[in-house]
C-alpha cells in the first residue's frame, strides 16, 4: 500500500489525499478531520495555488457589485488544524501504485484519493475565441481576471449589441449566463441607456434551460426583460475582429460586445493520468456513492465528478456529506452509502433586487412551490427574499459550508414537501 505512512502503537495511520482546495476539497477535508483522530488518518490537501475564489461572486464583478479581492481568500486558511496543505501543481496520478506525482518531482502515496480539482476553462478549443478582440470585445466572467476586464468594458459601453453565449455544456453554474442577462438588463437601465442596448442570449440548448418547467419560466423572464433568445446555436467560431458568432451550421450573430462562457474540461493532470478521467477530463463515479468506477479507493466530488447534475457549489455541498461518510465506510471495510440523489439548489439573480430559487435532483426537475417546505422560500418565482438569501449565502459559504457545518434546514437529500408536482405538464 503506497499510503501507509507510519505505525504508532501498533496502529497503521492511513492517508487521505485530496486533490484540489476549492469548495469540495475544503469541506471534505474539514469534515474528515472532525471524523477521524489525527493518529488514525492523515489528511493532505493539494492545490496549484493558494487562491480560493468564491465563484458565485464572479457574476457580480462585471456590474461593479463585487470586487475581485472581496471574493478571494487563502485556501490554507479555510482548512482546519491538522489538515496539511501543499501548494504544488500535480503532474499525474498513478492509479496502479496509488501515488500522486507532482511537478516538482515529489511523490505522495495514498490509501484514499479524493479528486476535487474542479473544472477548467478551455477557451482555445473554440476557434477564434482567444484571437483578435479577446478581452477587447470578447469576454468571459468565469474567472476573476475576465470578470474584472468585463467590468471595465461595460463601464465604457454606451450602446449596441451585447450577446451572451454558452458554447456548450457542461459548464459551471448553468444558470449564471441567464443571470448575467437579467443583471445586464438592470445595469443598463440604471445607466439610462437600456434603450440603446440590444441583449441576446445564445444557447446550444433547445430552450432557455435544460428542464421544461424552469425553461419556460426563464424564457418568460427573458422575454419580459426584452432579451432575445437564440436556441440550438452550436458556436463553431468567435470572430472578435468581425464581431460575429458563427455556428457550425453556418448561422451568424453580430455583436459589439460578446460575453462567452467557454467550454469546460477537467484539470489538466487528469488527461495525463491513464484511467483517471473521461474524454473531457471529468472523473467517472457512481452517481449515488461518488466512488470511482475505476478504483474502489478513489472518489470524486464537485465539478471534477462526471455525474449527471449541475456543476454547482450547492451540488458539491450536498455531495460532501455522502462522500465523507463513504470514505469512512471504505476505510472501515463497510458497504457504501448510495444516498446522493443529485440534489442541486440555486438562487437565480433576476435583477432589480430580486432572485428566484430552483431546487432539483436526478429525478425531479425544478418545480414551483416553496423550499424547504410549504412555509419556506418561494421556488421558481421572483422575490426580494431570494435575492437577500443569495447575498447572505457568501457569509454562510466561508463560515459554515467550508468548515463542514450543516446548514440549518438544508439537508443533503432534496425535500419534496412544498413542491408543486402538478406543474409538470
Amino acid at each position, binding site marked *: 500500500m503506497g499510503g501507509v505512512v507510519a505505525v504508532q502503537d501498533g496502529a497503521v495511520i492511513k492517508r487521505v489525499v485530496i486533490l484540489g482546495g476549492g469548495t469540495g476539497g475544503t469541506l471534505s477535508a474539514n469534515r474528515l478531520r472532525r471524523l477521524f483522530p489525527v493518529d488514525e488518518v492523515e489528511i493532505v490537501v493539494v492545490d496549484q495555488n493558494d487562491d480560493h475564489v468564491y465563484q458565485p461572486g464572479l457574476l457580480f464583478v462585471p456590474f461593479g457589485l463585487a470586487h475581485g479581492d472581496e471574493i478571494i481568500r487563502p485556501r490554507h486558511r479555510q482548512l482546519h488544524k491538522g489538515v496539511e496543505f501543499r501548494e504544488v501543481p500535480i503532474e499525474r496520478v498513478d492509479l496502479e501504485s496509488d501515488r500522486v506525482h507532482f511537478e516538482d518531482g515529489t511523490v505522495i502515496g495514498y490509501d484514499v484519493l479524493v479528486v476535487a480539482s474542479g473544472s477548467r476553462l478551455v477557451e482555445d478549443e473554440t476557434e477564434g475565441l482567444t484571437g483578435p478582440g479577446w478581452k477587447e470585445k470578447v469576454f468571459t466572467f468565469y474567472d476573476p481576471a475576465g470578470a474584472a476586464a468585463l467590468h471595465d468594458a461595460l463601464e465604457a459601453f454606451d450602446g449596441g449589441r451585447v450577446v451572451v453565449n454558452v458554447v*456548450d455544456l457542461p459548464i459551471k453554474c*448553468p444558470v449564471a449566463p441567464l443571470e448575467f442577462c437579467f443583471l445586464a438588463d438592470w445595469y443598463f437601465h440604471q445607466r439610462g441607456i437600456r434603450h440603446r442596448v440590444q441583449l441576446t442570449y445564445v444557447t446550444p*440548448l433547445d430552450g432557455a434551460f435544460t428542464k421544461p418547467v424552469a425553461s419556460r419560466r426563464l424564457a418568460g423572464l427573458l422575454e419580459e426583460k426584452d432579451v432575445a433568445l437564440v436556441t*440550438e446555436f*452550436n458556436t*463553431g467560431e468567435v470572430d472578435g475582429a468581425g464581431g460575429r458568432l458563427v455556428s457550425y451550421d453556418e448561422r451568424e450573430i453580430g455583436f459589439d460586445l460578446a460575453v462567452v462562457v467557454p*467550454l469546460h474540461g477537467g484539470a489538466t493532470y487528469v488527461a495525463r493520468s491513464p484511467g483517471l478521467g473521461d474524454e473531457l477530463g471529468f472523473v467517472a463515479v457512481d452517481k449515488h456513492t461518488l466512488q470511482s468506477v475505476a478504483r474502489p479507493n478513489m472518489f470524486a466530488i464537485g465539478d471534477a465528478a462526471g455525474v449527471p447534475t449541475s456543476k454547482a457549489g450547492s451540488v458539491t455541498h450536498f455531495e460532501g456529506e455522502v462522500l465523507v461518510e463513504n470514505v469512512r465506510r471504505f476505510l472501515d471495510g463497510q458497504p457504501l452509502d448510495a444516498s446522493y440523489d443529485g440534489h442541486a439548489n440555486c438562487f437565480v439573480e433576476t435583477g432589480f433586487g430580486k432572485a428566484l430559487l430552483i431546487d432539483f435532483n436526478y429525478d425531479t426537475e425544478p418545480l414551483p412551490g416553496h423550499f424547504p417546505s410549504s412555509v419556506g422560500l418561494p421556488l421558481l418565482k421572483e422575490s426580494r427574499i431570494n435575492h437577500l438569501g443569495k447575498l447572505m449565502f457568501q457569509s454562510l459559504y466561508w463560515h459554515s459550508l467550508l468548515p463542514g457545518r450543516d446548514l440549518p434546514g438544508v439537508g443533503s437529500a432534496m425535500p419534496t414537501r412544498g413542491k408543486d408536482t402538478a406543474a409538470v405538464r
Partner: protein
Amino acid sequence: MPTATYAGTTVTVDDEGFFEDPSQWTEAMAPEIARAEGIDELTEPHWQVIKFMRSEYAQKGTGPTVRVLGKTSGVSVKELYQLFPKGPAKVAAKIAGIPKPRGCI
C-alpha cells in the same frame, strides 16, 4: 407509444422519432431513417459515426454529445456538421436507432 415502420418492420419510437429499444434496429433501416432526415445517401463516414454512436450507447447508456463525438469518433466537429447538417448528436442518434442523447444540466 408511437411506432414507425422501417425496412418493413414496426419499431417503437418516442414523440420525436428516437428509438425506444435499440435492439429493434437493423442496418437495413438506417438509409430510410436518414432520408427522412434529409440525408439521401449514407457514405462511409456516416456509417463510421453511426457505428460509433451505437457502441457508445452500449457502453455508457447514452449517446455522446457533439463535442465528445468530435474528440473520440475520429471525425471532427466541422465534418460532423457536414455529414449531419441538422445536428450530429441528435440526427446520428436517430439514424443509429438509439434514444435521444441526454443533455447535460
